């Protein structure tokens, strides 16, 4: 497999996972909680790394999952029990956890093969270098490709199996709890999925760009369709489009691939905002003029 293809494919798989979860986040008005989690998992990653001694283990996902839940819990706790306003509760919690993560990295600098640059904007360009080679010596292709593929399958299964419950708790939480669906449980389930996806994507795209992939494609899709299944599909498509466009932009400018992907996803959003047939500013204007 060529380098170009494996990078684009990995980025597309990561962005599809993020886009799917992003649809739920933005409709639940929890986009910034997603942002917070993507930063707050850092200490979880470092601790899991110290315990297991490797980057690509189940421990890492577990550690991140736990810290992600803990972040969600803290934000809720400060908001409900200490009556701290939500925005401040999010801001205080994630900066604290991120700071702990950075300190842990400096503390164990010799033992942890992580650095701040990588944490913030990833190193997707190195994806093709880290390949799986079987005992027979056959090159199975980049490892990140498998990891992001598995994460996407897990997310798809999660959404497919729990679709009705996720749908109801997102659009009509009052009705959902009236018919006996626990909104809290599904809230934490989604946050758990966000944490796992964030960690799995961390290495390739970094913390900030996970946020771009969580929010931008979903927001773009939200401006185009009113049908939720359509929104999920379109979001994945925009994620993949951003990955591809971003890769070629980065190659052309000789810059960060992840940064370019985020930039392209922003451009797609701007296009949708201007030109979407249903919610775009251009057609809205025409409609108001026509009336």
């Amino acid at each position, binding site marked *: 497999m060529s380098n170009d293809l494996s990078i684009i494919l990995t980025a597309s798989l990561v962005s599809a996972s993020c886009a799917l979860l992003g649809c739920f986040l*933005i409709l639940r*008005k*929890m*986009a*910034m909680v*997603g*942002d917070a989690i993507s*930063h707050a998992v850092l200490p979880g990653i470092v601790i899991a790394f110290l315990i297991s001694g490797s980057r690509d283990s189940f421990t890492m996902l577990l550690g991140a999952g736990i810290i992600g839940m803990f972040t969600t819990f803290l934000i809720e706790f*400060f908001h409900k*029990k*200490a*009556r*701290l*306003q939500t*925005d*401040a509760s999010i*801001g*205080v919690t994630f*900066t*604290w956890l*991120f*700071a*702990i993560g*950075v*300190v842990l990295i*400096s*503390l164990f*600098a010799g033992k942890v093969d992580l650095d*701040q*640059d990588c944490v*913030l*904007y990833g190193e997707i360009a190195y994806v093709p270098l880290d390949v799986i080679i079987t005992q027979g010596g056959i090159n199975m292709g980049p490892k990140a490709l498998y990891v992001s593929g598995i994460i996407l399958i897990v997310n798809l299964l999660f959404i497919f199996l729990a679709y009705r419950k996720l749908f109801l708790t997102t659009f009509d939480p009052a009705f959902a709890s009236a018919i006996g669906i626990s909104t809290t449980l599904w809230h934490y389930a989604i946050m758990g999925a966000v944490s796992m996806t964030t960690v799995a994507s961390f290495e390739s795209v970094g*913390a*900030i*760009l996970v*946020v*771009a992939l*969580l*929010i*931008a494609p979903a*927001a773009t899709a*939200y*401006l185009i369709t009113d049908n939720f299944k359509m929104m999920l599909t379109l979001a994945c498509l925009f994620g993949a489009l951003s990955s591809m466009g971003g890769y070629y*932009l980065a190659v052309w*400018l*000789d*810059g*960060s691939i*992840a*940064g*370019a*992907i*985020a*930039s392209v*996803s*922003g451009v797609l*959003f701007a296009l949708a*905002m201007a030109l979407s047939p249903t*919610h775009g*500013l251009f057609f809205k204007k025409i409609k108001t003029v026509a009336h």
Partner: protein
Amino acid sequence: MNALLEFLSFSDPNIRYVAFGSVLLTASSAIVGAFTFLNKKSLVGDAIAHAVLPGICLGFIMAGTKNPVALIVGAFVTGWISLVLVEFITTKTRIKEDTAIGLILSVFFGIGILMLTVIQKSGNAAQSGLDHFLFGKAASLVGSDLITFSIVAVILLVIVFALFKEFSLLAFDKDYARSIGLPVKGIELVLTSLIVLAVVIGIQAVGVVLMAAILITPAAAARFWTDKISVMFLLASMFGAFSGLSGAFISYTAPSMPTGPWIVIVISTIAFISFFFAPNRGVISRFIRQASIRKMINNENVLKILYQLGEENRNFFIPRLPDEIIRRRFYDKPALISILKRLSRQGYIDRTRNLWALTEEGKNRAQRVVKIHRLWELYLTTYMHIAPDHVHEDAETIEHLLTPELEERLEQQLGYPKVDPHKSEIPYGNA
């Protein structure tokens, strides 16, 4: 201890730069940030912190060197554009504010990273150190940085002091500010510029991600100790300054430790202590208060039931079994027994083995609760025109809370009525 003394003597110029620089930054950011906190726009600081990156790169490309003025101007421009875009997206499309903030923050940062990497590969030697804006470099502050920081800090403080009243009014009651003819848009513009300025300077010390903490965490902590805005600002700046100093001290004793994250850990610790232990607003004192109110309500409800049972027999002092109480209002039996024991310790109830009877004191207290309940029901039906079968729930709450002064006014306004809407007698003291 020696290390602390040596640090505090500030004899080493490096320590002086780092310590004073950090304190100036954290204290002035805390003061400006307190307004974003009060405006419930804490995450806007986070958005600006990320959005200045492309501006810094742009400033560098324009100037060709790390000219601080060019970088700050560039940062200012994109920081501003990001805020305008968040506002635009929120008002013109159906995207909500939190999504707009997250979108602008991450896309601007992505563009910034792209530009930064392009600059780094361009071969211009002057670029080294641009990435200080990403992660901060508080530990390597030098004299010239300190001068820039001091100038900015003075500008921030002077403007905040000059416009303190206006900023506060806007944070609490924007409509009123508009109605008395204040130039609301103009003042908001100044405040936003101050935030952008604080961010542009601050990220050089703590980096992009942690900037939000320097802005809002001191204010969030201070809010728990006071309801007075001037005290809150004083506390916020003190918390900020203390964390700045501690961060500098920690990275002085352990040079491998980054200053910025330690500043944030110290300020967060202060905030968590405040959230839990602050009197009145803290979690623990809130919990204690709720528990004591719950106890009081349970006490009064049990006394009330004994009183109502007494009304039926026209004798308030008959000893009762717990089951008689449970028949009127369901209680978990062990819980009820513990309430009864508490009441007998307080002298409201006499206990004879498993029989419990009101004392004179208990009867009086119960009578007051019953009286307020029935007066309130009457008040709601007469003055609020609520149907008699809808007033019980409300009276059930108010009976525990009404102050003696309000109780008296209620009696006077209703003219000491004899019966409530359900034809139950309203008992008055010593009657």
